[in-house]
């Protein structure tokens, strides 16, 4: 039994036609189910708990990366629930990394029901599927596996903790990195000069720029001043920050082709 959770921004009239088209397609494919529209007044945790008690086995987030993050954090404690995505709107990098490129093919992907178990990351008590960004405001030290420390020679660097490939690195690394089934996360340490290249369009997708990549299972962020940490979507966390991988945590419906 399927539960479709529509993010509240889909209440806008501009999405009416698209949602109708999706619902018809899902019915044609025989995977129609219950639709629930999220709102600030609805408690998502209680909603999901109730629906799972009524027999829901697959929960589909309909929306963007923020929607995905919100739903995942509420279903992660259930071992036998399968997660799916129908991407709508902007900021849909997670769906793309799961091989779901657009809204039209998302329904076919759900119907094909190719399920994989993927790793999740956990930062303090929040789960993430794609990665987290640590803003380059001041000097940061990473303590890795309780055995060694990583620090930057310069103060201006950005740190990305990745489970899936970050959007700005499309095509830049071979498949050995950013595999969400390898039981590891990657810490990407990027000098600010390289970030500027990205923003001003000088970045070549196949160029191996002077970044550092550290695969790890557990890492702590050490800093004297507070830093802004952004998880999937918009959640902001403050130190102390402990990050670890949770291997094979989430059952997810994926597409056949994952972008390199």
């Amino acid at each position: 039994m399927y539960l479709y959770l529509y993010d509240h921004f889909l209440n806008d009239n501009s999405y009416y036609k698209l949602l109708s088209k999706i619902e018809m397609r899902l019915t044609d494919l025989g995977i129609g189910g219950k639709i629930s529209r999220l709102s600030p007044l609805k408690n998502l945790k209680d909603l999901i708990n109730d629906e799972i008690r009524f027999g829901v086995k697959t929960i589909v987030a309909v929306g963007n990366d923020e929607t995905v993050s919100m739903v995942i954090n509420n279903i992660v404690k259930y071992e036998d629930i399968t997660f799916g995505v129908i991407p709508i709107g902007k900021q849909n990098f997670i769906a793309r990394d799961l091989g779901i490129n657009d809204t039209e093919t998302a329904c076919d992907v759900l119907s094909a029901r190719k399920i994989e178990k993927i790793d999740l990351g956990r930062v303090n008590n929040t789960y993430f599927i794609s990665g987290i960004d640590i803003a380059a405001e001041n000097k940061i030290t990473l303590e890795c596996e309780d055995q060694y420390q990583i620090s930057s020679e310069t103060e201006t660097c950005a740190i990305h903790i990745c489970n899936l490939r970050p959007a700005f690195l499309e095509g830049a690394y071979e498949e050995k990195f950013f595999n969400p089934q390898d039981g590891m996360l990657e810490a990407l340490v990027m000098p600010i000069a390289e970030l500027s290249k990205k923003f001003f369009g000088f970045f070549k997708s196949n160029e191996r720029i002077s970044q550092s990549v550290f695969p790890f299972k557990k890492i702590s962020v050490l800093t004297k001043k507070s830093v802004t940490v952004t998880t999937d979507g918009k959640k902001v966390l403050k130190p102390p920050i402990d990050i670890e991988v949770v291997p094979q945590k989430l059952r997810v419906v994926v597409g056949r082709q994952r972008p390199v």
Partner: protein
Amino acid sequence: MFKKDEQTQEVETIIGPSVHVEGDFTAAGNVIVEGTVSGNLKTENFLKVGNNAKITAHVTAGNASISGEIHGNITVKEKLELASTAKIFGDIKTKSIQVELGAIMNGKCAVGDDHALKQEDKSSKPIKIKEWKMAEESIKNRL
């Protein structure tokens, strides 16, 4: 959809030019060092040390290619390559070595497989005993 364990999956660590690593660094797979490392560095696989890298650590690797500077002992299980810009200040132990013209080495160097190195050790013992016996006889003769 994602790469499976059955296929060759090499984990790789890249330490970039602007990064410093300190402590006991044990990598799961290949390691590329372009920055600075201090402490201990260990990998069972391949280690590459770039031109501008500086390592102040004991290094252990399966295979290694060094172009930068290392202050510490190096133990390489199979093959060690030293480029012309390599500077090694410490002892080297490896199965085979290739050194380019211009490389700097300052320390002991033991090259060969473990069996050959152990044979060398065994053959030295009788000579030491023999020398001791000769020394003892010469003392007795003086007395």
